[in-house]
């Protein structure tokens, strides 16, 4: 292994281990178990009721219920994944430097850029794993409770994981300038801002307000976790048509919007840009 790759591998393994052994992971895991249990109870009740109802012509009630419940779950997964990502990365630079955790590492023959990169990589790996596990649990629950499955299985989960990885990258960038508390607040405000913009975009779409749609579009490019979330939602009902499609696209907490062909390349470039800015700012920082 080369002199550059070896420290990265060592630090990445350490950061993953740290992520899994910190109390925040146990707390999020506990909350997730509670969420999945309550979600299963809710799904069971919802599908039982849908089976006894007759909806308007052209609306598949079971499809509508399944897509809505899945939309709710995807919002919860994005939120919980973001909480995990934020808590794992919010003190990466300034917070850890002020606590004296960072200095012993960067005095070793390891670059600051490598420390930054490995912290983000570890958070992305742990959070992606978390998203995959919870998303799978949700799919199993929906299948078991109502016999419903999304139109696409893998794509939505992968896009959700990517959304959480983007948020982790923004949190790492914020950690260069902000203290841990301030960065945590900023990260959740960014998350809330992105999701709120997405909701407004859906409202704009519903009432035919081009300005709202345009504003939401700009926010989606500026904060692409929102675009990834919408793309994930959209994939879950990709094969629906007619009134059912219209209703499920409105979604319970922001509807789905299909990803253009440029979304994933843009997200890759966005992550590189965030990494470059974070590394440059960290390199100039006195510790």
């Amino acid at each position, binding site marked *: 292994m080369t002199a550059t790759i070896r420290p990265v591998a*060592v630090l990445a393994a350490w950061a993953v281990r740290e992520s899994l052994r910190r109390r925040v992971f146990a707390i999020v895991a506990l909350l997730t178990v509670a969420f999945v249990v309550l979600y299963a109870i809710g799904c069971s009740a919802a599908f039982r009721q849908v089976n006894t109802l007759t909806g308007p012509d052209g609306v598949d009630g079971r499809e509508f219920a399944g897509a809505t419940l899945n939309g709710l779950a995807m919002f919860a997964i994005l939120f919980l994944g973001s909480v995990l990502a934020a808590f794992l990365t919010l003190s990466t630079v300034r917070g850890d430097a002020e606590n*004296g955790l960072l*200095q*012993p590492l960067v*005095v*070793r*023959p390891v*670059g600051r850029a490598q420390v930054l990169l490995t912290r983000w990589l570890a958070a992305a790996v742990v959070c992606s794993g978390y998203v995959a596990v919870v998303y799978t649990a949700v799919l199993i629950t929906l299948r078991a409770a109502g016999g419903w499955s999304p139109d696409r299985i893998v794509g939505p989960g992968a896009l959700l994981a990517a959304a959480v990885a983007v948020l982790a990258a923004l949190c790492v960038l914020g950690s260069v300038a902000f203290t841990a508390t301030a960065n945590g607040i900023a990260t959740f405000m960014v998350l809330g801002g992105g999701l709120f913009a997405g909701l407004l975009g859906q409202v704009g779409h519903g009432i035919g307000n081009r300005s709202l749609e345009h504003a939401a579009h700009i926010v989606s490019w500026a904060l692409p976790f929102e675009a990834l979330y919408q793309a994930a939602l959209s994939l879950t009902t990709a094969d629906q048509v007619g009134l059912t499609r219209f209703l499920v696209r409105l979604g319970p907490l922001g509807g789905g919007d299909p990803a253009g062909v440029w979304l994933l390349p843009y997200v890759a470039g966005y992550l590189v840009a965030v990494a470059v800015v974070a590394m440059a700012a960290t390199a100039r920082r006195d510790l």
Partner: protein
Amino acid sequence: MALEPGELVGLLGPNGAGKSTLVKTVCGLVRKTSGEVSIFGAAAGSRESRRSIGYLAETFRYPTWCTADELLTLHQRLAGSDGDAQERARLLVTVGLPEAANLRVEEMSKGMQQRLGLAQALVGSPKLLLLDEPTSALDPVGRRLVRDVLAHLRQAGVTVLLNSHLLSEVELVCDRVVIIRAGEVVTQGSPHELARPRGVRVETDAGERVIDGVKREDIPDLVAKLVAGGEQVFAVTPLRSTLEDVYLEAVGGDTS
């Protein structure tokens, strides 16, 4: 300011003098605004220079979830140390924590964590050891242990820069003391050189007094003169200025 290989240098100065900044500049944690800093020929902050360094920060913390053994293993790997479990065990014995290998950091007292920090700094047998207030959290026994470690390191040819507020400690272990103020070296030398003679204390039947300007070789003449003058001399003690006197003189009473 230069440190010779195998030299143990104490860095003194009032708060804000630049002691920690100097140490951090040598480590590459702080960028220099002027001048040159090199470590065994490599520019400070470069990867090559950091291979030679062991560092214990003034404000230090280690992840609370990991054990002493895990922390030392991480630093072994990052430092590219060939040492294995034997090196880790040896280091823990050196810093007086032979039973702490499987103890998590959160289970350790502050003093134990500082000793672990010293063990971490010694991973990979660095040629230059930078210690920023390494005994701030230690009790007298712990301080004695650190002094013994430093003496051992000097014998092993390790260069040490010790930043400490504890003058007595610096006086006891250092080959050379450098006093800085506002980023400038104001005086330096061995503790013995700095501690200049400053007269004698004389105890006679007339009482006790200090006579300035008298050197050790002048004492017989002084005693003879006092006896000739009718005084009974009970004791004459040569006085030397302490490192504290030198320090206060050098920093001009700047105790900020």
